[in-house]
């Protein structure tokens, strides 16, 4: 096995990709394809679309590795942000408007079990704990936006709350989780 690559930092993998090293892209893919594909599938539902999107994410990283700035976070966060943004664009595009309306109606209607799905999906115990500790309204706003691909305005409609409130909830919920996880990691480091 290639130990050097397996332990390479995000920054050095990005440099490897910038130098057209296929094995660097293979390693980036090995580390992140699962999460990218999982998120794409969660948002787009249709497997073929999720595959297309995943492919697009890695091909565009191969073509434009300089878009990733290691100073601004992990490569995984970058790739997932690209994937999420693209998935949401696809969801919001004109062609899928009808499907979107149906989806929104289903969400607004009874029996929307996104929350349960997310509990099952968020495998990392610490992240799930942090999510569980959030006030209910913050948690569902984050889940609807991130895993449901809804805008905060749509979330406001679903939750029947003012837009400004939802906007603040998403931010305060994220910050609360960040503090919680920082606190947890301090605890385990001691």
């Amino acid at each position, binding site marked *: *096995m*290639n130990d050097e*690559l397996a332990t390479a930092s995000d920054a050095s993998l990005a*440099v490897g990709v*910038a*130098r*057209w*090293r*296929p*094995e660097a*892209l*293979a390693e980036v*893919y*090995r580390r992140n*394809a*699962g*999460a990218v*594909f*999982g*998120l794409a*599938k969660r948002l787009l539902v249709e497997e073929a679309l999720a*595959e297309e999107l*995943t*492919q697009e994410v*890695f*091909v565009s990283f191969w*073509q434009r590795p*300089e878009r990733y700035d290691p100073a*601004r*976070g*992990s490569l*995984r*966060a*970058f790739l*997932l*942000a690209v994937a*999420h943004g693209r998935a*949401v664009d696809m969801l919001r595009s004109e062609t899928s408007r009808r499907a979107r309306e149906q989806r929104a109606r289903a969400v607004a209607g009874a029996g929307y079990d996104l929350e349960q799905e997310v509990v099952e*999906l*968020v*495998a*990392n115990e610490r*992240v*799930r704990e942090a999510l569980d500790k959030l006030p209910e309204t913050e948690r569902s706003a*984050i889940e609807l*936006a*991130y895993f449901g691909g*809804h*805008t*905060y305005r749509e*979330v406001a409609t679903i939750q029947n709350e003012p837009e400004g409130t939802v*906007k*603040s909830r*998403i*931010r305060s*919920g*994220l*910050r609360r*989780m*960040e503090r919680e996880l920082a606190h947890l990691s301090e605890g385990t480091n001691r």
Partner: protein
Amino acid sequence: MTHDETETLLGAYALDATSPSEREEVEAHIAGCPRCQAELAAHREMAAMMAAGLGGEVPARLWEQVAASTFSAAPPPAPVMAPPLLGPVAFRPAKQERLGLAVLARRARALTLGLATAAVAAAVALASFFGVQVNQLHSQVHHLEQQVGAASVATAAAVAAAGPHLTVTLAAADGRRAATVIVAPKGLAYWISSSLAGLPGSQTYQLWGLVRGKPVSLGLLGPQPRQPSSFRIEAGTSKLMVTAEPAGGVPLPTTAVLAVGTVPAGALS
């Protein structure tokens, strides 16, 4: 948009939950605001942690598709990769029609960072590899599997790279990377990228394995060894080497080694 207005939108922005016009306004502000950049980065990491648990089974064909649309279209490194020690051999710049100039320039900038000027004439030292007495001259000289199509070889190489494999880097005499070879289990190997300069048509690059101290021809790479190709290496191969030889190849190296890489012991058992 003011700092305060932007700040309240950062969470929604990080989750792609704003309208397109809000997105633009947030981006315009963030570009010049380190505090917002830091907060956004934290939100994105948080989102990524939530998504990390979504990792399920990824269809194997997906990597093949990624590999097919990347490696097969990958151009040679930009011409800042000066030819390795080729002596009197003429240098022909590589073809670059596949990439836009801007991309090439960008890659070139990235590449020059790690490259010192070639100056070392250590080929002489490397040539001593061939000081060994060789009795059996019946090395097979054949072309590598380029004719089956570079794209399919690239795909196969990419599949190999996604599984257990070794990467052997062939370095030129001055230490710069001249080529990369992926070795899959059972000795199936792929020549996947190279910065070797083009040779005149009367010459070819030839790939050699050093097997128990003796060079064995692994095949001809042609005068422009940019395309992926595949070959096999036998157990006991300790080095991979490249020389420039007359077209048609030779049973034993006749010129200095241009690039050499070590195959880890036990890798092919």
